[in-house]
């Protein structure tokens, strides 16, 4: 199965405060995912341009159908264009997460925006490859 991108929050303007992702069932064969926060690039300067705007995203995993939740990882970042040491624009802030195995797993999450508003997309790219590289498809 090729990697697949799922938008948890669509490209839109989000105000200061918290926004939750609706819990989703993760297919049993999915072993890893990448959490993506779309960043500002020269191709679209309207996405998260303000370097004072901070976005925090945190994911939680349930192995018991949503009764209990455990932290699965989180990232925070400031806005503006981010350049790699090789002078390449970074299109997304991203976090690779290896998922614990289980049947009927569920994933939920939350973002917190400060010094917003912010225009961005929050996505996950799911893959079946554990420990290896998850090839993220182009937007």
């Amino acid at each position, binding site marked *: 199965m090729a990697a697949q991108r799922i938008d948890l929050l669509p490209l839109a303007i989000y105000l200061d405060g918290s926004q939750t992702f609706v819990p989703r069932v993760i297919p049993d064969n999915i072993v890893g995912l990448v959490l993506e926060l779309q960043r500002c690039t020269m191709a679209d300067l309207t996405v998260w341009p303000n370097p004072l705007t901070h976005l925090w995203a*945190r994911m939680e995993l349930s192995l018991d159908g949503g009764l209990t939740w*455990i*932290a699965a990882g989180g990232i*925070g970042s400031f806005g503006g264009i*981010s350049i790699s040491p090789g002078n390449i624009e970074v299109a*997304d802030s991203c*976090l690779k997460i290896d998922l614990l195995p289980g049947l009927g797993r569920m994933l939920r999450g939350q973002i917190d925006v400060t010094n917003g508003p912010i225009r961005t997309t929050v996505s996950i790219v799911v893959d079946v490859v554990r420990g290896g590289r998850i090839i993220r498809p182009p937007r």
Partner: protein
Amino acid sequence: MPIAFDNSGKADADAVSSLESPAWLISGSNRHLVVGVGVIEITTPPDPSSVKRNGSGGTNLTQNGSSILFDSSQYRGSIWELVAPAAANETIYVALAETCYRVFIIGCSFTGVNQITPTRTRTTNNATNEADPGPATVTCANTALNDLVVDFLACGQSGGTATNVAVGAGQTERAVVESPDLDILAGGMSTEPATGSSVTMTWDVTATLGVHHYALFGLPLIPTDVTPLRVVSSPLRW
């Protein structure tokens, strides 16, 4: 009770100013937590402003010594500690003052560690433009029998496309972060029991550009066991 490895956790991310690992369980008695943080940024990356157990509102760890800048100050590595972390299924978390190109965090917990003086003085080594494949090495010359040396490696190569790390002979790999992406940052944490006054920790680093840079920290953990004093009694003579 000898020092024993308990558990480990890790996370790595691109273009972030804070990073939190998945939750991982710490248990046992006489617990000690060691965390390493690696950062790469186009300009000098900042020191972590905080490293915590259990998220941004959690318990602060204490930095062990200064961080190490390497490769023309694009890379930074640092190690952090917490005595007696809560026995719980919690995360490790690092915060930075600015967004950095790549950040990773690795933590290992141990049991049987002296809670009054948990570590001896750390030893570090770092190098730039080491030929590939080549070892990253640090020698802790201040160990004692039954210490457990834990090391933390941060390494990479600007402009490269991959770096792989492999733990040296005699060591046990506890956690590794490898990135196949451009301008990579990789690292790992391993342990080796001390059998004498010196322990050398080694990682083999292989990168694609033919050279790599690294910082390696070696930190001896001290066991709870205290050798009983031998009392020699003799009749008092007045």
